[in-house]
Every structure is written in structure tokens, then in C-alpha cells.
């Protein structure tokens, strides 16, 4: 056990049980999985990506490259989870990754022996030939070898939410600068959100051995948190990662609501996606402690100096029985001293610098820490670190240590400043990139801005919090910043120990070594973006948070052009990996999109209807009866019943638009190709509207209810699009027209009754209205009441070609109307039908539908050219007159039937003249809609054929190579049933 006897922000009075690779361990509330593993002496936690080298815990935060585990099991299994950010909970189970057969003995660790062949560009160079090997041999091999964790293949049992939040000041990060900023903004009255990735506020203050306003830093954190929590204008958001900055001062965050418990509490989501709209944002995300490149710098036990100190002070854990620290900067020295102070036995502090600040030296002396100046670590030993070799000038010595803290300096965590295109700027004096231009409304405070001293952080946070609040309209009195001593921040830029031996890693997660950077340089991949792609440096879950700096510094040294000129790769969202589940939120499975049931849905369910999704709508497709062997048998029965007696269908899904005002007639004349201003009150007319490019947009019937009142129907699919188009025409093109539009699709249920007996049915429903052919002729409209006082609009329309009526009633009366229709139609054997029969009826009648109004056809193509009025202008008129639209060779709408009526047509087949090659050049058109016609007893189809109308009676090939069909068809009129239209007029 390496738990220190005292200290740490953990609750030692309570014990949590967890397992790692099946072995049971114990930890305390306040631990992360990483700190608990270290406390149990578990130092080997994973195998590296390429060489399968043993790896341990390297950091204490979200930049962790090594300690990736599979968390939980079964449906909740989550791969590649950073042990350093996982909050320990009772019953947690985790498994190591990328090893076989076990973490201790990994067969693929032989890869290390052939590492000279697995260097940069290995994949590009090796798996090249023969090409046929790629899919069957190479790719499966690479995928198996390049494992990392495996995702659960079971459905995620948890739920995820999305939410919006608005604030005046968003503070990102709760270290010294963040807390100071939040306090000063909140005290002014501004609405403040403080987002902290960790489950505990305080950031580096939880680790550092410093005083603020004369008290330990942890007391300052506690007081600040208590004050903020008590303010009504502040929302504290722990466990919340701000992962992206977007346009319009919008920040995307993931709140891990239930990741710290085994199973979410009832009605709690696992995670919540927040979109925070902030007038101002203060980035106070601190800095990462970056590694130094030297041989064997990846052994379990080697970690950042900050991690060593954090495990000691925040978690009460010694990363090993004893330790050493290797650094080039004052923060590294301070970390070594903080760890020592907390009880870690630090054998030596090795600094590449010849001289250290006297205050630090004095502290080291007081703590009894041996300081080696001008020293470098040149080698390490042990599957778990057992010793290091230190070179001082010409002298070398070996120190037996189990842990080594390394610090190559601070890398400001400026990821979010780059999301809208900001480019970091290099500062030689601190050997770090600091934010360049930042997103509008953002400012940076503290270490992220290169302000590494505690006093500087507190001052910058306080000032910027006040400034941000003032910008948002809250002028509070300027308050003094909390006081702290200036901490030493000196550094000597130092990236790599020049020594031979083991691999010296730049990027631990991707196994990119200093040698690989050299290969990339030698082979010309010198620009940082190329360096990244060629070596894979900076990829995967940590996105180079540790490695980028050293990698580009090494390249800068090789090219001799300097770090500033070399630049960094572009940081893009997300800052840390985001689960797809939380991006989807509730939009999954049946909630992927809304479901719109029709007003008669419950009734149709009771009738045993089979439903089909049409857009968001759920419509009855057909109504099977017991004993029917397939859908076709049901549909044939429904068609026959409708043609011979009476059928009924819910057509509420059509778009319905109410138009009122003195100029509606004029307006409709301009949007339809035909005239509507001349339509008589009490009549309906079929209309076609075009897009401005001359192609058909939609069709439907529009009825005139009164002089200044029309009601339009659109196709189901285009209801929204047409409404938007009409609003555009009114508001943008012709604002002078006095017309009001309302979508009434939801407000009216509409049911079509069709067939020779439909008038008999209707007569029983109306409250005395005359529905005779004389009183309500074809295309007539009646506004009346049905079923004893229910307001109704009756349209005598026919999509089937039969005598037919569409009865509209207020939506909530739809089911009642349907039941009344069924009752009234009982003596005639009234038959409910669905979209399948609707399709057969309209194809038999030769009516166009969505397959023909496919965005490629003009009114003339559809055989409706003569409908277009020549007395007026309308949308699409000018461009519909273009020569190509008038070309007599253009495919025209006609009908088709197989010459051998036993054969079945297939939509999508293309037409060829008999005896010609099946080439694109010989293509003469295509089949759009087909059906089996029970009325005719064979397959029929609609489609477009060059000069189709002139070719009635001619035989052509319907060629369908995709489904292997090639049959002879006869061109015919599209109206297979009742071509004169007599049945609908009786």
C-alpha cells in the first residue's frame, strides 16, 4: 500500500470497493480510479498502442495518454476511459486494454523488438502491396492489433439530455484565476456559470502548498465555493467539461450527471449536453505540466511532477515507495517540495539548470531534499520503474526510485481559444504558446494566459471577472484581489535529453518517439500538420495535450527555424472525447424523430391496420383480414370493394392551408399555373405550382369557401415546404397583397369516402344538407354540419376516379366521424383502406403523385401543359418556357402495361427501343410508379417516355439491370380505368 498516513481530500472514514482486471481493491470517497489504483500499489495499468509497452498512470487529469481503461461491464461498458478523471464509486469495475492474454504478459510486446520497422509512416510503407491484400489481410490485422478498448455492442440502457443555459459571465475552470473571476463577477450581480471539469472545485489550489489571504489555499477554495453556492445569480457546474466554443458566444458542455455512480438514479440522465450562451466568457483552464523526452521516459512510475504532487497532496497517495523529480523549471521544483511536504520520500530533485532560486533551495534544504543541478535523467529501468540513471556533466549515478516526476514546463491549456480560428503565439520568455486571437467575448485569465504565478492568477481573475460583468451591464465596485505571495516561475527551455538507449517518447498514447520525429523530418513531413499525420503524434483521445509541444520543439530544432515559426497544429472541438449518446440526447430509436399519428390512428389500430411511416406520419398501409395470406390479397380486396361499392381512408395528412383576405385570388393566380381568382364560391379546383426554375413543386386542390376565403391542400410530403414558399411569396415578393395564411393541417381531420355507394353513406351523415349530384356536383364544396351539429366541410373530389367525397371535421371529431362512416356504410360493405390501396387506385386512374412530382418534371412533362394559363404571370412561368422544357424529345407522362400480362413491372426500369444496345445514349425514359391492378388483372405502370403520347400502342423494353429484369411493355394512356372520367361525375 502506498496510501500516505495522513492528508488528502478523501474521506478516510468510508471505504469504497472496486475491481481492476477482476482483482478487488479498496479506495475512499474523493479518490479517482487512478489515485485509488496507485494507493493500492497498482502501477502497471495498460499497454501502449503500437509496441504494447507496459504503461502506468502519467497525469492526474483529462490529458492522460496512458491509463485508459474499459469502465463498467455489459451494456454500460465504456472503452478508453481515462482512469485519471473517473471518480471512484462503490462497485466500480475496470479492465485494462490493449493486452493479450494479460496485462502482465502481453504477447504483442514483441513489437518492441521490431520497433525499428514500426516507426513513422509504418502503415503507409508496409501495407502497400499487393493491393488485393488490403481488404482481406492487412485491414483486419491492423484493426485487431490496433485495439485499445472495445465498445459494448448492447443498447445503452441510460438516457441523455440536452439543455440550454444563458448567463452574463461563463467562467471555465475553477483554479485560482477561475474562482477569483467567478467571485468578482458574481459579486457585481451578473448571472455567472462556473464550469469545472473535475468533481471538485479548486484546480491546482488543491495541490499547491501555498497561502491565500494568510490561510491555506484549500480554505480559500472552500470559502469561495460556499459564497458562490449561496448566491442566487450563480450556477456551479462541477463535472462539466466545456468542449467547444461556437459562433454567437455559444459554448458546448457535457455535464457528467451520473458517471460517478454505478447506475443513474431514477429519472436522472447519465450525461447532459449543455449549450451555454454567455455574454462573456473567461477562460481559466490553467496549464498542463509537459513531459521531457529522454530514453525510457514511459515506464510505469514515470509521471508529470504535478501528478506526483497532486496524488500526494490531494489524494494522500505516494506514487511509489520513494521518488525523484526531473525538471527544468521552478514549478517542477515546487511540485517536488509539495510532494515531500505531504510525505513522499523524494530522493533527489534533478534540475537541468545550474542555478535555482535561493528561496526554493532553502526550502529544499529545510525539507532535506537532495538537489542535483545541471543534471539529466538518461535512462530508466524496470517493468515498473525501479531505478533511474542521472548524468551530471561526465558523472553518472543510478538512483533506486519507484516514481519519477518530470516537468518540462507549463503548456497553457488554450484549446478553446482556437475553436473559431485563433492562432496561439509563442513566448520565448516562458517557453510556451499563449492564446493569440480569442473568440468574441472571451478573455483568458491565469496560467492559460501565461500568468503562472499565484498572485498573478488571482489578480487577473479578479480584474477580468469585474470587467466581464461590467461589459454585460453590471457595474460593481472594484474589489481587491485575494493576496498571495509571488510564486517562482522561472524556466530554461529544455525539450530532450541527448542520450542513447531505450526509445524516448514524445507522444505516449500513439507511441511516437523522438526517432519518429527525426524520420518525419528526413522524409520531408516537416510542417506540423504533416508531422502529426505522418507520425500520428497528437491524435486519439488526448489530442496531443502532452505531446504536441515537445514534438514541435524537436522538429523546430531539426529544421532550425525556431518554435514560433514552426507553430502548432489546429485545436478543434471537442476538447475531450464526447460520447455520441449525449450528442443524440433523447433522439434515438423511436424518438429519433417525432411520430405524427392521424386523428383516426387509435381506431385504425383497433381494426388491425398495418402502419407505414410517411415522413413523420404514421399512416395505415392496409387492413388485413383473417385468412388473407399477404398484403397483396388485402389490397386487392380493398381496391375491389372501393370500385364496386365503397371504401374509406383517412387523408388528414395532406397539408391544409387557410387563406383569407381580399387579394387571395390574385395571390393564388401568381403561385399556381392555372387560374383561381375565377373559381366560384363553393367550388374546388386542382392546381399545380412550380418552382421559379419551372419544375413542378407541388399539386393539390384548393377550394373557395367565400369571396375572400380559400382553403388549399398540399401533398403530405410538401406541406411544410409549400407553406414556407407561400409565406416567402407574400412577405418578400408581394408584400402589397392583403392575404393572411394559417396552417390548419393539425386542426382538421379529413376522411375520404370513395366508390359508387359513397353518396348513400354521406347522406346518412349530414344534418339534412342536400348532397345530390345537382346540389353538390363534382368539384363542389359544401359547408355544413354532420352527426348532429359537428362543423364540416365536404369536398366532392376524387383521387380514385370513383364518386367520392372528402369530409373535413375538427380534428378531435375525426375518430367519431370515422366510426359514423363505418356504421353508415355497413349495409354497403364499406371497406377501410390504407396507403397501398390509395396508390393502386390512383395508378389505375393515372393520377400523378410523389414519384412523378420528383423535382425533375415540368407541368408539360406531366401532361398538364395545357392547364397553364397564358393570361397571367406565375412563379416559374418564364423559366418553364426554356427550350429544353419544350423539346419534343423530352420524356412525357404515359402509362405502360406488360405485353405478357403475367410479367411484373418494376419502378425504376428504363425504357429502350426494341433491339438497341442498353446504353445511356439509348435511354428513352423511366418507370416511376407500378402496381398490380386487380381491376385489370395485371401489372400496370406510370412513367415518362420520349414522345410518349405519340407512341401509344408501341412496344418498348423496360430494362432494369439492377434487379435483372428486362421485359417488353406496351405504351398506353395513363388512365387505365374510366379514361373519360364518368364514374366520378355521376
Amino acid at each position: 500500500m502506498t496510501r500516505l498516513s495522513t492528508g488528502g481530500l478523501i474521506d478516510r472514514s468510508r471505504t469504497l470497493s472496486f475491481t481492476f482486471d477482476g482483482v478487488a481493491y479498496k479506495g475512499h470517497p474523493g479518490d479517482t480510479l487512478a489515485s485509488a489504483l496507485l494507493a493500492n500499489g497498482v502501477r502497471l495499468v495498460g499497454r501502449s498502442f503500437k509496441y504494447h509497452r507496459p504503461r502506468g498512470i502519467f497525469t492526474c487529469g483529462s490529458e492522460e495518454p496512458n491509463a485508459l481503461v474499459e469502465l463498467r461491464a455489459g451494456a454500460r461498458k465504456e472503452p478508453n476511459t481515462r482512469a485519471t478523471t473517473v471518480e471512484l464509486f462503490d462497485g466500480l469495475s475496470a479492465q485494462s486494454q490493449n493486452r493479450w492474454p494479460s496485462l502482465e504478459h502481453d504477447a504483442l510486446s514483441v513489437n518492441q523488438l521490431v520497433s525499428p520497422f514500426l516507426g513513422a509512416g509504418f502503415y503507409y510503407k508496409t501495407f502497400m502491396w499487393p493491393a488485393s491484400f488490403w481488404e482481406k489481410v492487412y485491414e483486419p490485422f491492423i484493426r485487431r492489433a490496433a485495439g485499445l478498448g472495445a465498445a459494448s455492442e448492447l443498447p445503452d440502457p441510460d438516457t441523455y439530455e440536452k439543455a440550454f443555459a444563458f448567463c452574463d459571465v461563463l467562467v471555465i475552470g475553477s483554479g485560482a484565476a477561475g474562482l477569483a473571476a467567478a467571485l468578482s463577477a458574481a459579486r457585481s450581480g451578473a448571472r455567472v456559470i462556473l464550469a469545472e471539469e473535475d468533481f471538485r472545485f479548486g484546480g491546482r489550489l488543491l495541490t499547491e502548498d501555498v497561502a491565500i489571504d494568510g490561510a491555506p489555499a484549500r480554505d480559500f477554495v472552500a470559502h469561495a465555493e460556499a459564497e458562490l453556492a449561496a448566491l442566487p445569480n450563480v450556477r456551479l457546474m462541477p463535472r462539466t467539461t466545456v468542449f467547444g466554443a461556437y459562433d454567437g458566444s455559444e459554448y458546448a458542455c457535457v455535464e457528467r450527471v451520473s458517471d460517478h455512480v454505478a447506475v443513474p438514479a431514477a429519472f436522472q440522465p447519465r450525461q447532459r449536453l449543455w449549450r451555454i450562451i454567455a455574454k462573456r466568457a473567461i477562460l481559466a483552464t490553467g496549464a498542463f505540466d509537459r513531459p521531457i523526452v529522454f530514453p525510457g521516459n514511459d515506464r510505469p512510475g514515470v509521471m508529470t511532477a504535478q501528478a506526483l504532487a497532486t496524488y500526494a497532496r490531494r489524494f494522500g497517495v505516494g506514487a511509489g515507495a520513494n521518488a525523484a523529480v526531473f525538471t527544468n523549471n521552478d514549478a517542477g521544483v515546487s511540485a517536488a517540495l509539495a510532494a515531500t511536504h505531504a510525505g513522499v520520500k523524494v530522493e533527489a530533485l534533478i534540475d537541468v539548470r545550474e542555478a535555482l532560486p535561493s528561496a526554493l533551495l532553502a526550502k529544499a534544504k529545510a525539507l532535506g531534499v537532495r538537489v542535483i543541478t545541471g543534471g539529466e535523467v538518461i535512462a530508466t529501468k524496470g517493468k515498473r520503474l525501479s531505478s533511474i540513471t542521472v548524468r551530471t556533466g561526465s558523472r553518472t549515478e543510478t538512483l533506486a526510485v519507484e516514481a519519477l516526476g518530470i516537468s518540462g514546463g507549463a503548456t497553457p491549456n488554450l484549446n478553446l481559444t482556437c475553436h473559431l480560428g485563433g492562432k496561439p503565439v509563442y513566448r520565448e520568455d516562458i517557453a510556451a504558446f499563449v492564446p493569440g486571437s480569442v473568440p468574441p467575448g472571451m478573455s483568458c485569465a491565469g496560467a492559460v494566459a501565461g500568468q503562472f504565478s499565484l498572485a498573478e492568477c488571482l489578480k487577473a481573475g479578479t480584474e477580468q471577472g469585474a470587467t466581464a460583468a461590467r461589459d454585460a451591464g453590471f457595474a460593481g465596485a472594484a474589489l481587491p484581489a485575494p493576496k498571495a505571495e509571488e510564486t517562482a516561475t522561472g524556466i530554461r527551455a529544455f525539450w530532450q535529453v541527448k542520450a542513447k538507449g531505450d526509445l524516448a517518447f514524445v507522444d505516449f498514447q500513439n507511441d511516437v518517439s523522438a526517432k519518429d520525429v527525426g524520420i518525419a523530418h528526413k522524409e520531408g513531413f516537416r510542417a506540423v500538420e504533416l508531422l502529426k499525420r505522418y507520425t500520428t503524434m497528437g491524435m486519439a483521445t488526448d489530442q496531443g495535450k502532452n505531446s504536441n509541444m515537445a514534438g514541435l520543439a524537436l522538429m523546430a530544432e531539426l529544421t532550425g527555424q525556431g518554435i514560433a515559426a514552426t507553430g502548432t497544429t489546429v485545436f478543434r472541438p471537442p476538447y475531450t472525447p464526447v460520447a455520441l449518446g449525449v450528442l443524440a440526447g433523447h433522439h434515438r430509436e423511436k424518438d429519433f424523430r417525432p411520430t405524427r399519428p392521424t386523428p383516426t390512428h387509435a381506431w385504425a389500430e383497433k381494426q388491425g391496420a398495418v402502419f407505414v411511416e410517411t415522413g413523420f406520419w404514421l399512416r395505415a398501409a392496409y387492413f388485413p383480414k383473417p385468412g388473407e395470406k399477404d398484403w397483396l390479397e388485402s389490397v386487392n380486396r380493398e381496391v375491389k370493394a372501393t370500385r364496386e361499392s365503397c371504401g374509406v381512408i383517412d387523408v388528414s395528412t395532406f397539408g391544409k392551408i387557410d387563406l383569407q383576405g381580399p387579394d387571395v385570388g390574385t395571390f393564388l393566380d401568381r403561385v399556381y399555373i392555372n387560374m383561381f381568382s375565377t373559381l366560384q364560391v363553393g367550388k374546388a379546383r386542382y392546381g399545380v405550382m412550380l418552382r421559379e426554375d419551372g419544375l413542378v413543386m407541388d399539386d393539390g386542390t384548393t377550394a373557395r369557401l367565400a369571396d375572400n376565403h380559400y382553403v388549399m391542400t398540399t401533398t403530405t410530403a410538401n406541406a411544410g415546404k409549400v407553406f414556407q414558399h407561400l409565406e416567402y411569396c407574400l412577405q418578400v415578393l408581394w408584400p402589397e397583397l392583403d392575404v393572411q395564411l394559417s396552417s390548419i393541417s393539425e386542426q382538421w381531420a379529413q376522411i375520404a369516402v370513395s366508390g359508387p355507394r359513397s353518396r348513400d353513406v354521406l347522406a346518412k351523415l349530414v344534418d339534412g344538407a342536400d348532397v345530390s349530384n345537382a346540389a353538390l356536383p363534382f368539384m363542389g364544396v359544401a359547408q355544413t354540419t354532420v352527426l348532429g351539429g359537428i362543423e364540416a366541410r365536404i369536398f366532392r373530389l376524387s383521387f380514385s376516379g370513383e364518386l367520392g367525397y372528402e369530409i373535413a371535421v375538427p380534428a378531435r371529431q375525426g375518430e367519431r366521424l370515422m366510426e359514423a362512416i363505418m356504421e353508415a356504410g355497413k349495409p354497403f360493405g364499406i371497406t377501410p383502406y390504407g396507403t397501398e390501396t390509395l396508390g393502386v387506385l390512383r395508378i389505375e386512374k393515372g393520377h400523378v403523385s410523389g414519384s412523378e412530382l420528383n423535382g425533375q418534371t415540368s407541368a408539360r412533362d406531366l401532361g398538364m401543359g395545357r392547364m397553364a394559363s397564358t393570361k397571367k404571370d406565375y412563379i416559374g412561368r418564364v423559366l418553364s418556357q426554356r427550350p429544353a422544357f419544350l423539346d419534343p424529345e423530352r420524356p412525357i407522362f404515359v402509362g405502360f402495361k406488360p405485353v405478357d400480362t403475367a410479367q411484373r413491372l418494376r419502378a425504376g426500369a428504363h425504357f429502350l427501343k426494341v433491339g438497341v444496345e442498353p446504353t445511356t445514349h439509348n435511354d428513352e425514359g423511366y418507370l416511376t410508379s407500378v402496381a398490380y391492378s386487380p381491376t385489370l388483372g395485371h401489372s400496370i405502370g406510370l412513367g415518362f417516355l420520349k414522345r410518349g403520347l405519340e407512341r401509344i400502342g408501341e412496344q418498348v423494353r423496360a430494362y432494369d439491370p439492377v434487379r435483372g429484369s428486362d421485359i417488353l411493355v406496351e405504351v398506353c394512356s395513363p388512365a387505365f380505368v374510366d379514361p373519360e372520367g364518368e364514374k366520378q361525375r355521376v
Partner: protein
Amino acid sequence: MRIPCPYCGSRDAHEFAYLGDATLTRPDPAAPDAAEAFHAYTYLRENPEGAHREYWYHANGCRRWLVVTRNTKTHEILGVEFARPSTDEVPA
């Protein structure tokens, strides 16, 4: 991205449908060069860098067509107005 709708206030851009260039005017269909003018009106678009006036429709809101002036490089919204100006549409 947010669009400050003059009727509804600042709203998420997902509530709006985009149409495009608001500097175009539907040509006179009776003009002798109507065919060419409509071709240009329907198909030809500039792709300016910087401020651009464009139509957005507040589909999941007030259903007003808006003219939004947007910086195409930074997505900054520089101004929003109703496509059909009318004083009686904004509640006092």
C-alpha cells in the same frame, strides 16, 4: 449560432430555415429580357466575403421572413429586419 429575431428575440439558429441572397429582386416577367433576367435571378449568386444580406425564415417561431446581415467569414450577425417592413408586427 444565434439570430436575434425582431419579433421573438435572440434564438438558436436551428429554429430558422436559410434561403440565401436577399439582394436579389424578382425581375419583371414582362420585360423583353425576362428569360435572361430570370436565369440570373434563379441561378447566379455572388459568394461575398464579409457582410452579406440573406433571407432566413423563422420556421419554428413567428414564421416571419427576415433579412439577416451576416459576416460570412466570422458568422457575426450585423443586423436583422423583417423582409416585409410593417410597424404593427412588433408588440409594444
